């Protein structure tokens, strides 16, 4: 087997040193009846070439974004990733290292995490950020749990514009942790009155902007109402590129900002791995979940970095920890920070403008299609279409024309009588030909 360096002669020599006659003898502590007598009913090992052939066949049964005119979003976005990003994250020293528990031989990881934390804090308009969570949805659930700890209350209010999967993740963990959650009805037009629902029993209000339906939300007044009632405002985003063009959640008064970082540096990957971003105010630092890289000095007095405040974490605090998270999304955070370093503020702003302009162009074209209506007043790079028919069926018909048109709202909100709504996202990867193809396929498929 090409991955196993030991030869039979090596194995025999090692067994002699150990003083046993066979490797089986090393399993003497396992109940004899549980040791397999015959190999499992699984295929034999394959050569590298055979393995690649197997996967090539499976891959060929999928329609990747690059083979279609592609307008799918709803929490995961296709952006162009510079080749240097993927090259750098595949360097052995990044790819095949562990969590930086030995700082003397992990300064590479620790420094990029420190830079990542700074970038996330700047982008969200917050004071501190952690070294990443699994993804945006789990980061949102962690934010709610943190708000409970900070306020010593156990009831969260979720906006009807929150990504339905995110809301489900929060509800699942809350129900099993015996915390309360109220969820507003799906809020297509950003018309819900959250402020009227805020009182002093709430630990937090969770609001997404741009919201699930694409609307932009001003959080300022919601933040004020939260603070007047001793509650925290948790602001969520699923499209990190939007922060290049929009007011930051921190500037609008958010206390915890969480989001999905996939759209900077990370491929779609059919849903994972992604990278959760988590930022907050300095005063709540010790209630944060997850790892933190901090600055210090080494024995020669030189600036260096180390994982810090680990007394919050499970490996020290055990059942009193702020979270059970251990492994996070280190390499995805690296992809994020490299891509964002390449972009810089100038590149990010420009990229965000192109995304928005493409969305405006597409919305204008779609508004001219009979029976089709763009519902949003405001949006960044995604909006909701009412198509006067079943959106799921329409998407299938358009896929047959090599247009992946978007996400039927009912796929995520199945029992809300929203079958005629379609979420459409567009980024810098879309060309005028793609937009023309979209409109043509839409007209043929309606």
């Amino acid at each position, binding site marked *: 087997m090409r*991955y196993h*360096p*030991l030869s039979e002669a090596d194995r025999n020599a090692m067994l002699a*040193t*150990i003083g046993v006659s066979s*490797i089986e003898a090393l*399993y003497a502590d396992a*109940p004899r009846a549980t040791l397999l007598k015959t190999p499992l009913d699984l*295929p*034999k*090992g394959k050569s590298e070439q055979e393995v690649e052939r197997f996967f090539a066949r*499976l*891959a*060929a*049964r*999928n329609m990747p974004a690059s083979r279609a005119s592609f307008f799918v979003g709803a929490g995961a976005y296709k952006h162009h990733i510079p080749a*240097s990003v993927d090259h750098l994250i595949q*360097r052995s020293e990044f*790819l*095949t290292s*562990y969590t*930086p528990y*030995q700082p003397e*031989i*992990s300064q590479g990881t620790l420094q990029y995490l*420190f830079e990542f934390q700074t970038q996330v*804090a*700047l982008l969200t308009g917050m004071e501190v*950020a952690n070294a990443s969570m699994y*993804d945006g949805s789990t980061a949102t659930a962690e934010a709610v749990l943190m708000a409970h700890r900070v306020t010593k209350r156990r009831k969260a209010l979720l906006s009807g514009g929150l990504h339905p*999967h995110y809301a489900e993740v929060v509800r699942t963990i809350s129900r099993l942790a015996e915390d309360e959650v109220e969820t507003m009805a799906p809020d297509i037009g950003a018309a819900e009155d959250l402020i009227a629902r805020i009182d002093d029993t709430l630990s937090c209000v969770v609001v997404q902007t741009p919201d699930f339906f694409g609307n*932009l939300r001003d959080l300022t007044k919601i933040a004020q109402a939260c603070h007047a009632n001793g509650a925290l405002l948790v602001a969520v985003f699923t499209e990190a590129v939007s922060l290049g*063009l*929009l007011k930051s959640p921190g500037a609008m008064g958010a206390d915890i900002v969480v989001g999905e970082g996939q759209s900077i540096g990370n491929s779609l990957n*059919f849903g*994972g*791995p992604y990278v959760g971003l988590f930022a907050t105010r300095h005063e709540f630092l010790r209630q944060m979940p997850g790892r*933190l890289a901090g600055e*210090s000095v080494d*024995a*020669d007095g*030189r600036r260096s970095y180390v994982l810090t405040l680990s007394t919050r974490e*499970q490996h020290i605090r*055990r*059942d009193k920890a702020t*979270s*059970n998270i251990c492994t*996070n999304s280190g390499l*995805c955070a690296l992809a994020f920070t490299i891509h964002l*370093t390449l972009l*810089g503020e100038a*590149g990010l702003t*420009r*990229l965000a403008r192109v995304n*928005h*302009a493409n969305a*405006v162009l597409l919305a204008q074209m779609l508004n001219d299609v009979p029976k089709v209506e763009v519902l*949003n007043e405001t949006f960044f790079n995604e909006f909701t279409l009412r198509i006067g028919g079943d959106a799921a069926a329409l998407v299938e018909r358009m896929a047959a024309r090599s247009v992946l048109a978007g996400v039927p709202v009912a796929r995520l909100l*199945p*029992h809300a009588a929203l079958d005629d709504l379609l979420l459409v996202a567009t980024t810098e990867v879309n060309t005028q030909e793609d937009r023309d193809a979209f409109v043509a396929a839409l007209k043929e498929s309606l």
Partner: protein
Amino acid sequence: MLDRPAVVEPLDDDKTPATFTGNRGLDQEEPLIFEIGRIDATGVDVDDPAPVATRLGALERNAPIGLPGLTEPETMRHYVRLSRKNYSIDAGLYPLGSCTMKHNPRSNEKIARYEGFADLHPLQPQSTAQGALELMQTLADWLMTLTNMRAVAMSPKAGAHGELCGMMAIKSAIAARGEAATRNVVLIPQSAHGTNPATAALLGFSVRVVPAAADGTVRAEAVKEALAPDVAAIMLTNPNTCGLFEREIVAIADAMHEAGGYFYCDGANFNAIAGVARPGDFGIDAMHINLHKTFSTPHGGGGPGAGPVVLSERLAPFAPVPFIRRSGDALELVEAAEGTQSFGRLTAFHGQMGMFVRALAYMLAHGADGLAQASKDAVLSANYVRASLRDVMTQPFGDRICMHEVLFDDAWLRGTGVTTLDFAKAMIDEGYHPMTIYFPLVVHGAMLIEPTESESKASLDLFIATLRDLARSAKAGEVARFGPAPRLAPCRRVDEALAARKPVLRWTAAA
């Protein structure tokens, strides 16, 4: 082969030599991006946006963010320089016990980047992603066969997330029995990973500690003594965190079931037994499988991982959404929990597809026999290290057969003036990443060594010779080799107390 010195002379000066640049040959200083980047610089050329009337309402940003940019050559240099300050499995033996730093095949990286997987959106029509669903189902089938379990939840994002998934299924099953109010205790041995008690506490369980016997394993008798009508489950790692097989695991499972409780097995150490024994045959009800350990998806400096959870028949109905169902010739992803007993959703979308591809590629490359050989070689290598060091280092539970990792304590260092930490740091100067230290917490000055199956005998022999020489040195009182160590790493010991006392967690512009 190089000649090795009979005695290693300690470096005679405590200070690291100074240079004008701060560089030391190939080890180059690298400032932060905030110190070298410029707000107007970019490494990405973006087309001009079309002139349009914006639809941003009053929410357009009106202040700078402060993000620096670098051009592409500057970016390459920054991250390449940073990378050179890291140890990696590709560069050397990485014996972190419990972490399983085995070889990461590059074919798996290549396959995970096939555009049919990497460029696939989780919410595009399922009819356009049948190959992806087939891949997930194939991996699920392998995991169920390897464990002899009835179902598998694929969406957990890492080991701790898998624990959460398994314990949520258990809590849901108990609620379905109408015992939610009365069964609220989880039994956990003191040697457990910190994630176990943290997970139990997250779900409102209280933790009752089960003592280990003098040999480092848990006795069924001890479990029975801790059992009461308030016990919901036990969380037990097997092989355990001391590197030992839990000999009474079947009796423990029986005792749990007899008392109406469930058995959550922490599968972090499944790599010792994959293909050799099946956890389902032990009588467990749930177990997460760290694809980034047993099935070699790269650790990536701290993730991403993946933690699918295999479930027994009793827990299968409570598995989270989404799950895959065959419907005619097609595979269907069931995404809504309504109308099922599913406990709900753990994460957006469907799990760590990128990790699924790599793990399945690893399995297909090995086959059933290759996976068994990997487990056996891992156990063989750990025992070889044990047998080769047993005369110079001490083991907390006596010299006995271990599984894929061998645990030493610091009894043999007593009186030398050298601590476990010093010993670990001296290993860095010798070009090794240290083993896991001070874990498990129950063993004084613990050193947990997991060589994995990826090492050649020559590599193991040099590692053993190095540890023997360091041990000799420590016992001979050569403290100068330990106290100031590491001297030859990109940085020296870092002041962790300062970092915690005055947390600096981000760069800020000088005032």
